[in-house]
């Protein structure tokens, strides 16, 4: 009986400790791979395909109720700027600012430059 109790206590502890160990704050999707590729092999994946890939990452994260990391929406927004899709670009940049107010100065600067286009 005491050994059963001990086992129960150990399991209870594991239940408390383990979830705390493995959780991440964000859902990263293909964000890092996209950055790496944009430096090392630019042009191998079309801008449309890159944007579509990040949009899928976002869909998946929303389904899992996870947040996208800092910079994700800005990166996607910048892809839309390059594609000339300015409405989508603005939407993504506003999302970055709403998620992370630390980006406000940066995002406003990019939004202002879009008005000149």
């Amino acid at each position, binding site marked *: 009986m005491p050994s059963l109790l001990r086992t129960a206590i150990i399991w209870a502890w594991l239940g408390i400790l383990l979830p705390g160990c493995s959780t991440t704050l964000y859902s990263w999707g293909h964000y890092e791979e996209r*950055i790496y590729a944009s430096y090392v092999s630019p042009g191998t994946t079309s801008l449309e395909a890159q944007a579509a890939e990040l949009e899928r990452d976002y869909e998946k994260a929303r389904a899992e109720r996870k947040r996208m990391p800092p910079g994700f929406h800005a990166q996607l927004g910048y892809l839309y700027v390059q594609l000339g899709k300015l409405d989508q670009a603005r939407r993504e940049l506003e999302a970055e600012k709403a998620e992370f107010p630390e980006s406000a100065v940066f995002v406003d600067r990019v939004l202002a430059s879009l008005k000149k286009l």
Partner: protein
Amino acid sequence: MNARAPVALTACALALLLLAGCAKPYDYTNFRQHRPRSILVMPPQNESQTVNAAWSYQSTVTRPLAERGYYVFPVAVVDRLMKEDGVSPNKAAEILGADAILYVTLEQYGTKQQVLNAATLVKLRGQLVDARSGVLLWERRFAIQHNSNLGSGGILGDSTDAAHNLAGSANVRFFGDRDLGLLYGPYHPRYGKDE
């Protein structure tokens, strides 16, 4: 003899405790005074022989910093904007509204092939500086090595790829080691609890 065993064990345990205590914690006085929320990562200085080291590293640095609780400016976008507008790094932090700037120097970043094994080494140093005052908040030098046996089909591919894969885990420790890494940032549940 048997009576001495506990004494010996206690002595060993004490010695271990003392040794562990030898890794002197970083002095976080400046860090605590400024408590940055956002970090602008400068393109790393590459002192290694690996051509793509800076790009490779730059794509692995966001995750550990963000998971540590900081807002990290999107490295690829910022690099493009800085190139297009011709803005200097220090001016960039001001224009983007960054609280802190991270400077990283890659000392070694690649794989050395030896007779029977391959040693992949990532050796780096970094400084986190307060963007407004220029005060040094944190600095650290760090090295991590991964050995693989060529006979067992270890790393035979690109040396950059091996270093790239190692850089991810290097960063987790570089920024995350207790008493030596960065304090938790505002998006981390333990922000402010790591005195």
